[in-house]
């Protein structure tokens, strides 16, 4: 009798979604192209260097070769003004473009998801305050501020920013710990004493703790402007001796783009959490005495993951486009380093005479963005049955 029993595997949400995704031809196309791109930019530059001797920054010693040459067998995508091989540059640029996209998306994931989840779960006044802050930053034309930031701290000035890192980190830590302690204490204690004098007293104390932590963080941050800490000076020295200025500009780009890309993510997550938090499994977790942080991070966030993944996939192309825009203005990646954006921007200058200088970087970039967008759409259809195509 027991031999006939088959174990039936229930189709989990993820398995189901994966099946739906594989049925979507465009999404599969996107996955294949992206996998190919990632492999190409990872091992490509080494192969090019081995096969032709060209790297992304190699300017040929022979003066005859220092000019734009059309695509040939030796240079599959031709060369640029300085005689550098565009194929090698496109592969190298892909590394930077994809890294910028992925790192900024990663920042937006960590910051946006925690922020949105905390706001959505705690609700009430705290949610209101946290979301007003997001609204405020949203109303600012952030692109203007990013431009000012990139210009002000580019080149040698990045070390100034680095020397403030210790203060910035400590102030943020003070701020976060202060807010968390006051919020959690408030949540834990206030319900019990809500109508008593002690409750009012508690409220006042917590408000004072909260204000002190904010003030302390601000004072500490301001102190960085007056004098530098030893740690800061040491960091700045290490940074300026070890990091190439070109790379430094790229780090600055990560920082600037990460700074602004978490806002929409926070909104998406908050909306998701709001709809989840009144469901039975959360109540069950509360009833069995699970703590607030672990309800947020163990129960709510995993359940809100679908839209988060979708939105993250769509953030990568939008960040890459912003990077391209900044590189076009001359504020992003600078030669000899390259990104697809900066290569396309260089190519645009010679579009009428040497069209291949625009064509190949532009096509590669468009193809990648195309694939990412298709993959994002496919994931949305697969993970979110509510908005699935009918």
């Amino acid at each position, binding site marked *: 009798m027991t031999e006939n029993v088959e174990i039936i595997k229930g189709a989990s949400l993820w398995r189901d979604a994966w099946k739906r995704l594989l049925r979507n031809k465009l999404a599969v196309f996107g996955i294949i192209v992206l996998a190919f791109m990632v492999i190409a930019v990872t091992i490509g530059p080494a192969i090019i260097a081995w096969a032709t001797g060209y790297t992304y920054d190699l300017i040929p010693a022979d003066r005859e070769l220092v000019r734009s040459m059309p695509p040939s067998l030796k240079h599959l995508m031709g060369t640029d003004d300085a005689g550098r091989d565009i194929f090698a540059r496109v592969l190298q640029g892909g590394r930077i473009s994809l890294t910028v996209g992925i790192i900024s998306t990663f920042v937006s994931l960590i910051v946006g998801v925690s922020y949105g989840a905390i706001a959505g779960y705690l609700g009430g006044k705290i949610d209101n305050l946290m979301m007003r802050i997001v609204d405020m930053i949203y109303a600012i*034309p952030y692109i203007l501020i990013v*431009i000012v930031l990139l210009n002000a701290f580019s080149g040698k000035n990045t070390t100034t920013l680095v020397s403030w890192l210790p203060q910035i980190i400590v102030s943020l830590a003070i701020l976060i710990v202060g807010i968390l302690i006051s919020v959690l204490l408030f949540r834990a204690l206030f319900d019990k004493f809500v109508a008593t004098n002690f409750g009012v007293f508690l409220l006042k104390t917590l408000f004072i703790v909260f204000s002190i932590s904010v003030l302390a963080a601000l004072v500490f941050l301001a102190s960085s402007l007056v004098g530098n800490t030893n740690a800061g000076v040491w960091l700045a020295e290490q940074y300026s001796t070890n990091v190439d200025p070109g790379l430094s500009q790229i780090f600055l780009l990560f920082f600037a783009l990460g700074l602004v890309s978490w806002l929409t993510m926070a909104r998406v997550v908050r909306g998701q959490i709001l709809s989840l938090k009144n469901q039975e499994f959360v109540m069950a977790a509360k009833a069995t005495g699970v703590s607030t942080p672990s309800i947020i991070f163990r129960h709510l966030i995993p359940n809100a993951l679908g839209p988060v993944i979708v939105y993250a996939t769509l953030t990568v192309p939008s960040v890459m486009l912003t990077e391209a825009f900044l590189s076009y203005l001359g504020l992003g990646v600078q030669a000899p380093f390259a990104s697809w954006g900066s290569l*396309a921007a260089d190519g645009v200058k010679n579009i009428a005479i040497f069209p291949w200088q625009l064509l190949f970087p532009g096509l590669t970039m468009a193809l990648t963005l195309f694939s990412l967008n298709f993959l994002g759409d496919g994931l949305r259809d697969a993970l979110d049955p509510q908005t699935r195509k009918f």
Partner: protein
Amino acid sequence: MLSFIIRRLLIIIPMALLVVTLTWGLIRLAPGNFYSGEKKLPPAVEANIRKKYGLDLPWYQQYGMMMSNIVRGDFGDSLKYQGQSVNEIIRRHLPFSATIGILGYLLALAIGLTAGTIAALKQNSSFDYASMSLAMLGLSVPNFVLGPILVLIFGFWLYWFPPARWGGMSSLVLPVCTLAAIYAAYIARLTRAGMLEVMRSDYIRTARAKGLDEKTVLLRHAVRGGLIPVISFTGPALAALLAGTVVVEKVFAIPGLGNIFIQSVLNRDEPLTLGIVAFLSIMIMVFNLIVDISYGFLDPRIRYE
């Protein structure tokens, strides 16, 4: 409703001042100054310059003076364009940017709404697939690549439109199309998704059940609901439109505000940068307010207190 509008309008001013403070802080925190170029100035000259622009005062006095001037609407004179006030420069260059910006967004709305609605009504038809693929392409090509390609085709090969510069209606065509492409793509996708959802909702079934003809159902009931996501997009779109006009102005050599802004940042022309940042923040916040108000007209369920 009225108190909601007044409250939002009152918030705009402190918000704009906050943005100005932030920008000022960023400019000031960075080492270097507008006069520090390749060549080092003699100390006496530098001291004179610092005195003239009040840079020898402590920072809180400089900040206070600047803020009190800005609150009165005076952004001072540009440091780079000698003898021209910031307000004058903004007034002179704004019309160019505003023209391409507004025309571009209107064109994007017209194309996006039409394509999105038709795609939703004829779901899974070849028009649906074609327009959505085109929209995806629009989202994937940066506008500084699209612009020069359009110039090459329509300016240099076909001689239909002038390739750059400002003058007459025909010179507007290429910049406006370049700017509109990405927004048309976004709006078409949003409209399609919104319309698909609305067409399945109960109130559309009710409208049909009470015997309205299909045209009335579509234009009076469905479009209003389907527009909501498009309206929500308008807020972020305006901020992005700024970036778009910067590129378009650069590609087509149009003397608009975007280019002036980039130049002012590169020159570290502080009053001009702050003036433009303040002006654009206020514009964006006012437009966001208009967007929020228009929700109420589109969807009778949304109310403000």
